[in-house]
């Protein structure tokens, strides 16, 4: 019990200690859709290995078909949010689902805003 209390205290200290400097800390996600997307990403990360292995059993011609059907049932039993297809690359700042550039994880409007204010490194207005 003492060890548990100590661990808790150490964890709390580690969380508090590294961030004493006043900076903008994002404590809320932009909207609920973004939150759901975050949850899906976490669950997908947890089940990624299992899905990979079960798919390896399903998608081959060597193993008997019965085994593959059993694997089908297994993968369907996993939580729905564990599949990576459900993840949508949303804009990080505005949670816009469309018009998001993958390299910057920003929507086109935010990207344009920052680029015009010269806050995007190496981005310049095109002219040719």
């Amino acid at each position: 019990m003492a060890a548990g209390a100590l661990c808790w205290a150490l964890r709390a200290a580690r969380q508090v200690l590294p961030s004493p400097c006043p900076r903008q800390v994002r404590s809320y996600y932009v909207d609920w859709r973004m939150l759901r997307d975050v949850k899906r990403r976490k669950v997908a990360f947890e089940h990624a290995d299992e899905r990979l292995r079960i798919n390896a059993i399903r998608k081959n011609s060597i193993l008997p078909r019965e085994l593959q059907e059993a694997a089908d049932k297994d993968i369907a039993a996993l939580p729905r949010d564990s599949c990576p297809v459900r993840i949508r690359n949303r804009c990080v700042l505005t949670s816009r689902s469309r018009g998001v550039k993958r390299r910057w994880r920003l929507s086109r409007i935010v990207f344009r805003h920052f680029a015009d204010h010269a806050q995007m490194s190496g981005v310049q207005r095109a002219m040719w």
Partner: protein
Amino acid sequence: SVLSTDPEKPASKDSAPEGAAKRQEDGAETPKQRLLDIIGNMKVEVSYRKKLQQLKASENQKQAINKLEGLDSEGSVPQGITEDTQRGKPLNPELVKAASAVASSLPRDKKQTESELLAQLRRHEETTDKQKKGGTINICNVISEMTVKRQSLAQRGARISGRISLHLDEDGQRIRPERSSAQSIDSRSLKVGKRLNIFTKASTEPEHALKTVSSPTIWDLEFAKEVAAVTAQPPRNGFEEMIQWTKEGILWEFPIDNEVGMEDDAEFHEHIFLEKHLEDFPKEGPIRHFMELVICGLSKNPYLSVKQKVEHIEWFQKYFEEKKELLQEI
């Protein structure tokens, strides 16, 4: 106490010859410095000893007179002596009495000057004892190993020009000074010669380390948090900001190390030859065929660690064991 010490003054003036008069003539400019110099030279000047003996005689008389009154300045003399005996290095009583006489002769705070003079005397005694034992650093020993390096004008010119030269010229300019430094190191090895005993060996205390680790109380953590909050000032410039980011993990460390966080200590053969993990599988059949393909794929994968690969294989093993009944039906 001021009134009682007045009769002492004329008495000390009469008894102490030129020395005391000199001191008073100097006045308040640097009386303490003069006194310290005099005390420092006391052991060298033999003739001064007679004066000290006279002082001692006068002090004894004063003690006999003022014993009943129990004055502070006089009382400090026996106190000083007892302190010295307690310390284990009794100062020369003559010097002590001389110090007290000097202190009493000054118009300033007598107790303070007396204690300071006694401290000076103690320090002198300590240094002389050390030197007698040979514990202090003898400059002779330190310098004996060193030789004066004669820099030729040509070398000096080469060094200066080497600093100013462009990057292209580095190889040509720096070979010469390198040679000379290498030669000087070869002629004298590092471990030859007498020990100088300048540095003391740092004693390792693993027990104390264990103690501190096992009991970090919540108060200690709170204190650490407070200290961190106070000392962590906002960054003054971009460099400090980047340092902070690197500490937090937001910024990578430069030059970029591609293998940060990847501590794969396994050899190549552990990555490639994974057949030893296949011992629990049946030797023939589609499962074996499948697992051999799995192993082939894993051996070609450079992104996984050996642990992860072994985990994959073990999961397959567990899965096939669970499905054994199904397989046996086939």
